[in-house]
Structures are given as structure tokens and as C-alpha cells.
């Protein structure tokens, strides 16, 4: 009995590594903001507005990562049916919603002074808006269904639909006419069209945004497992141990 109480207590206490990760996020955020706002040189065309790019692009990349990881856990939930996979999918879906909302609002703030408009219904922006709507729909559907297995399965399918839209969103600036600038860093190996001093600052900002995403997801999974972990612990408890304790 004591071991069960102990494991339940442990599951509710934030582990040391998570606290250290949170502190690393705080330090990282201060460093990335300093690099973006002070160290980075102004852009030859955009001037100081380039400093918005470091915040906007880093959260946009992490948004894609969060959607992809949420899709992975959703697929695993559909395959294995484990409640923990659903908890992990929800944690990543929440992060995806946060980062996609940041991507859209940050993009609007970046767009107004550089392109003289907050919004336009072109392919890239519309696909991003659809992605945010689908992720919001994911949580609306979850709120409407009480039965856990059905809720998990239907929401997992919605997340997989969001994942399918990712490549179209990523390549929309190349495939369609859009106000959104083309990529400066091509993952197909065709090169980087960005000054190295700015690239370094951008990569630090992406790394810190990724660190913060890891913290958010880890903490959200920990909270989500509050109601799952004790049940799993009880399931694992061998019957023979109980007999010895009662005796």
C-alpha cells in the first residue's frame, strides 16, 4: 500500500529535470531575445523589423513540429488504443494550437509594417488559418464527446487530417502566388539565402522555442497522466504482494 501511495505522490510532484528544463527555458528566452533585439544587425530592406522575424519564424517551425508529433501519438492511439498515447496527443495538440495562434498573430504583426496589410486570403495564409480552425475543432469535438475511447479515436482522426495539410502549408509559398516570402532556408539542400549572422540568431531562437515547447508538452503530459498513472500502478500491483500485506 505504501508503495502505491508513494508512486501516486511522486506522479504529482514535478520532477527535478522538469524544473531545470523550465529554468533553462527562462535563461534561453532571455538570451534569444537579447540576440534578436540587440545583437542582430538590421536588415538592408526591412531595417529593425527583421527582429520580428526571429519570433515569428521560430514559433512557426515549432508549430509544424507540434502538429507532426501530435499526429504521431494520434496514430499510435488508433493503433494501440493506450490512454497514455491519447494524453500525449492532446498535450502536443494544445502546444500546436498555442504555436499556430502565435504564428498567425505574429505573422500579422510582421505583415502590416512590411507588406502594408494584416491579412490576405492567399494560399499560405488560408492554409494556416484552416490548420488553426482544425486544431480548434479537435478540442471542440473532444469537449462534445463523453465516452473516452470514441473521443480519442475521432479526435485522433482529426489530427491526422491536420498532419496531411502540413506539406501543402510548408510548400504553399513556392507552389502558389502569395504575399508570404519564399523560404530562406531550404530543407531540400538547395541552400540558405540569409546572412550567417542572422541565421545564427534565428537558429538560437528556434532552439529556445523548441525548448519551451518541450517544457509545455512535458508538463501537460504530467498533468494529463494524473488520472491515468494511479490506475496503471494498481493494474501492475501483483496479487501475491497484497496477500502478504493483509496477512
Amino acid at each position, binding site marked *: 500500500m505504501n508503495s502505491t501511495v508513494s508512486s501516486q505522490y511522486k506522479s504529482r510532484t514535478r520532477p527535478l529535470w522538469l524544473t531545470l528544463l523550465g529554468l533553462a527555458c527562462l535563461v534561453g528566452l532571455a538570451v534569444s531575445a537579447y540576440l534578436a533585439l540587440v545583437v542582430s544587425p538590421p536588415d538592408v530592406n526591412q531595417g529593425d523589423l527583421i527582429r520580428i522575424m526571429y519570433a515569428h519564424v521560430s514559433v512557426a517551425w515549432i508549430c509544424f513540429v507540434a502538429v507532426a508529433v501530435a499526429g504521431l501519438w494520434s496514430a499510435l492511439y488508433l493503433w494501440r488504443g493506450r490512454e497514455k498515447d491519447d494524453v500525449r496527443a492532446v498535450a502536443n495538440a494544445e502546444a500546436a494550437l498555442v504555436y499556430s495562434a502565435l504564428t498567425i498573430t*505574429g505573422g500579422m504583426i*510582421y505583415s502590416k509594417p512590411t507588406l502594408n496589410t494584416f491579412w490576405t486570403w492567399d494560399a499560405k495564409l488560408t492554409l494556416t488559418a484552416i490548420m488553426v480552425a482544425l486544431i480548434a475543432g479537435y478540442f471542440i469535438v473532444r469537449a462534445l464527446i463523453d465516452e473516452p475511447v470514441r473521443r480519442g479515436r475521432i479526435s485522433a482522426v482529426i489530427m491526422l487530417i491536420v498532419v496531411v495539410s502540413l506539406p501543402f502549408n510548408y510548400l504553399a509559398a513556392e507552389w502558389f502566388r502569395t504575399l508570404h516570402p519564399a523560404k530562406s532556408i531550404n530543407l531540400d539542400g538547395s541552400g540558405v539565402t540569409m546572412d550567417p549572422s542572422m541565421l545564427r540568431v534565428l537558429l538560437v531562437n528556434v532552439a529556445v522555442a523548441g525548448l519551451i515547447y518541450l517544457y*509545455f508538452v512535458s508538463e501537460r503530459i504530467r*498533468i494529463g497522466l494524473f488520472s491515468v498513472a494511479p490506475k496503471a500502478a494498481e493494474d501492475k500491483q501483483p496479487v501475491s504482494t497484497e496477500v502478504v500485506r493483509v496477512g
Partner: protein
Amino acid sequence: MWADLTQNQWVALAWVELLVVYVGYLGYLRWLRNKKARSEGEE
């Protein structure tokens, strides 16, 4: 209104928005943790 903003004010707006959303989500996680802990205690 928007036309009056300087470049530095746009930059500040973008970064403050980022920080506000981060802090807001942290607040939500804290609220959720307390809510779950309360509901577990009631059971």
C-alpha cells in the same frame, strides 16, 4: 493608429505578444494542475 507606430514599436508588439501567450499558457497549465488535483482529492 497603426500607421503611427514606429519600427521599434512593431518589434516590441510582436515580442510582448509572444511573452503574453507563453505566460498565459503557463497560467492555464497551473490552473489545470490545481483543478485536477482538487478533483482527485474529492474522489
